[in-house]
């Protein structure tokens, strides 16, 4: 059982995570040996550095905001940090093979107007870097609040966009069309444990594998606990540094 402490503003997230992992986590006092949940929506890197100095064992950053290389420099590489992205931390992304061989990949985040800032282009860039590798062809703001990029690398093209709207529930879609077929992975509202869905269509069939009823927050906590139990490093910061360092 590990002790958990959290920053103001993310109490409901933490209590639902702890309620879903009651034999592994309990809410208690902060400081030495505890896991700190950090509200990532604003300037989280300095507070994470403070937490390390305060003796926390590990940290989870919930919904990390955009930051630059200089801000990231205050965090040491070897401290166990799990970044809890709204969509990119969904367990379906680890369970399902979304690697593709050429063609077009589209990454679309539908985000409510009031919560636009919680899905950053950094999250989409990180997701794309993790799942695919592509160079930038065009990146820019198109439309109000729109953050879009068109990237191409060899035989693969990635088109990503954040679409602010109150018309539909928050969701992320990753679609691929290639030579042999196409597939779509849809991650529903990240505040819930609705399972992601995947539909792959080839020359003969539609296929839809099982996914998991687990939201990003719980999956992130499980990932951190597994790393701590096994004493294996987490790659979150390393990948983030790579993405932040890449040319915009």
């Amino acid at each position, binding site marked *: 059982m590990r002790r958990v402490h959290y920053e103001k503003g993310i109490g409901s997230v933490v209590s639902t995570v702890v309620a879903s992992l009651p034999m592994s986590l309990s809410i208690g006092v902060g400081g030495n040996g505890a896991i700190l949940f950090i509200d990532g929506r604003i300037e989280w890197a300095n507070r994470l550095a403070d937490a390390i100095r305060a003796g926390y064992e590990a940290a989870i950053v919930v919904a990390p905001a955009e930051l630059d290389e200089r801000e990231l420099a205050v965090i040491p590489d070897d401290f166990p940090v799990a970044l809890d992205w709204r969509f990119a931390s969904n367990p379906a992304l680890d369970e399902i093979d979304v690697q593709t061989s050429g*063609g077009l990949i589209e990454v679309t985040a539908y985000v409510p107007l009031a919560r636009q800032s919680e899905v950053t282009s950094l999250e989409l860039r990180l997701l794309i870097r993790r799942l695919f590798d592509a160079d930038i062809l065009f990146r820019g703001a198109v439309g*109000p609040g729109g953050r879009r990029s068109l990237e191409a690398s060899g035989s693969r093209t990635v088109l990503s966009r954040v679409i602010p*709207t109150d018309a539909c529930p928050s969701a992320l879609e990753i679609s691929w069309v290639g030579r042999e077929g196409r597939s779509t992975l849809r991650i529903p509202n990240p505040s819930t444990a609705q399972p992601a869905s995947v539909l792959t269509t080839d020359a003969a*069939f539609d296929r839809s594998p099982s996914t998991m009823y687990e939201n990003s927050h719980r999956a992130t906590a499980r990932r951190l606990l597994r790393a701590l139990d096994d004493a294996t490093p987490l790659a979150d910061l390393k990948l983030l540094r790579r993405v932040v360092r890449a040319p915009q």
Partner: protein
Amino acid sequence: MADLLGVGFVGAGAATQAIHLPALAALNETFTVRHVMDVDADTADAVAGRVGACASSSIESLLEDPAVDVVAVCSPPRFHPAHIEAACRAGVKAVLCEKPLALSTEEAQKVAEIVRETGVPVVVGAMHAFDPAWVWARKMVAGMGRVHSVRSRIVLPPNARFEDMATEIAKRTPGRSRNLAEPAARAAFIEAAVFGVTVHDLPLIRELAPKPLRVLGATLIEPAGFAILAESDDTAIELIVSMNENWKPDWTLEAISDTGRLLVEFAPSFVQSGSGKASYESKDGVMQSPPSVHNGYAMEWLHVADLARRTDARPGAMESLVADLDYTMAVAEAAGRRVLEESK
């Protein structure tokens, strides 16, 4: 039946055989095919024989046939303006021209002049503009506020599969192999693909985002297709085409505002599988378009029948068709230039 409108086809290729003849077969209380012309006399004979029509290999013969009330121009696109002009000057009741209307603005404007002069209505076969799903969807547009995102996503299996499900094709034109190694060939490919495929949706997109498009990025995608990122005023527009081996077409048009999301899923080309499906999603819930047994092809033919039987002209229709062509050409040319620049 005395009221039937006689149709003459100029060109008897796949569009005539797999699209229009099956569509007209379902409208046999309105139309009857009277004449099929093709420069290949064997094809003209074979196709005309299926519907009990006369066959010829010259447009003059077809236009001299008194049984022809409506001319369907299904010849190669470079001949469209000349064939429309010939039909209009022959005094037919209406012309249906397969897309595109012409290959340049000048040609399109000349066609518009001839239409004004002769009073013969011309309809361009942009089937999605007539699809009941889009007709329903466009009513929703007014209530959704400013559209800030538009996406046309067209994923198509090979045409031949759908042609074969629609009919038995006489003398199929073999597909050309593509060598896209050279930048100029890549630019030509994207221009042709915009003109050949996205052309169906660009008139609809122009309704959603009427200001001229500025292409920001364009690239070819494997195995055959493209992605274009553009903006019109402050509306982001994405145009995607992929032709691959998956069995199920995915032809969607999505428009999003702060408060509404409109999604139109079109039925595949060639087959007569009824209308597309449209939905409008907002905070209040989701509304869906009613299904119709008629697809865009049938509806465009019914529109032609309506025009052929009316005596009043439809002012503005040609201006709109010319503007659609301008819009399409601007996208195709800008995308071609982008691809050339990216290839440097």
